[in-house]
């Protein structure tokens, strides 16, 4: 097989993930796009391992460690850990703030200005105590509707 096929597919999948990370608003969709990027890297690793382990038989210098496949397994395990921690963080943010939209989490923005579509004006230009109080109110509403 030509090496270009898997490598080009991997590059295109990675760029799809980049688009998703930059363009999505929901934090869980951003995590999905990160998974796409990790999978593109995995495909790269597997393709190069298949190429190099065959080239080793033809006298090509190669360490014979099957590094690509071992690293792919490690990447899959790390991605599983990442998605667990990421979802725990997103759920904690949702419980505290009542939203999982990363556009609205602007507490540490320096200019304090923000998107006009936040509706409640929760954190735009408000003081820290005020923002916390309104966020708590939102969380109460979210929990009351449960």
């Amino acid at each position: 097989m030509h090496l270009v096929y898997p490598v080009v597919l991997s590059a295109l999948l990675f760029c799809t993930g980049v688009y998703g990370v930059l363009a999505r608003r929901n934090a869980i969709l951003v995590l999905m796009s990160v998974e796409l990027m990790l999978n593109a890297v995995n495909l790269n690793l597997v393709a190069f391992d298949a190429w190099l382990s065959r080239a080793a038989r033809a006298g090509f210098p190669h360490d014979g460690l099957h590094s690509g496949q071992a690293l792919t397994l490690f990447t899959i395990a790390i991605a599983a850990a990442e998605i667990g921690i990421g979802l725990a963080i997103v759920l904690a943010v949702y419980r505290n703030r009542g939203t999982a939209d990363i556009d609205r989490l602007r507490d540490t923005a320096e200019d304090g200005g923000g998107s006009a579509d936040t509706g409640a004006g929760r954190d735009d230009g408000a003081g820290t105590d005020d923002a916390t109080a309104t966020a708590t109110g939102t969380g109460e509403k979210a929990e009351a509707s449960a």
Partner: protein
Amino acid sequence: MSHGFLSPTGVEVTFLLVGVVTLGAAVVSVTTRQLVHAALWLVVALGGLAVEYLLLTAEFIAWVQVLIYVGSVVVLLLFGLMLTRAPIGRSPDADSGNRGVALGVAVAAAVALVWLVVDAFRTTWIELDGASAGTTEVTGESLFRHWVLPFEALSVLLLAALVGAIVLSRKRNADVDAASSGKAGAARPAGPSTRTAAGAKAAGRAAAGRAAARPGEQGAADAASGDAGRRAEGGER
């Protein structure tokens, strides 16, 4: 062995077709406005990648991909979508305002990367005949002969991630207990378990009922228990 650039083999044609399906599913997954559909299209993309691993003779990794990604990661993502109350239908605000910039960056990166790798690996072929390079035997032998230390370190990392996820997602009981035990006996909590705000209010009412037997203190007890209930509510978040 001669290779023809314009005469693709059967494996290459299969790889190309599955790759088109995979890429299409990935694109739909990052562009659709229905959040649950995005997770389901991600299943198609990840399953297509498992088929690609099989075509590259990495059998063990293909099944690990099916088990972990399609089996557990997508289920976790769906749970996350449900727990954050994602709308079932089309949600108009799935994409943020910087969509155009994101599209520009992604297209530029795609053009640069594809041009680079095509130019670099124009004359490189993978020999796929012969024994498989990724059977369970080969993978296990290399993993437990050369990669034992990283493997064990990874198990510690997984344990740390598990503990971290549990710590992150449990409610803060210490705050609740501190808030309610701070009130001098008016609304004594039943225990350090995960009491809800409703439980705190019920305890407050019981305390008020006890205090009603002693007229004269009722107003004070009511105020105290109501205060404790509010503070317990606030302490939970």
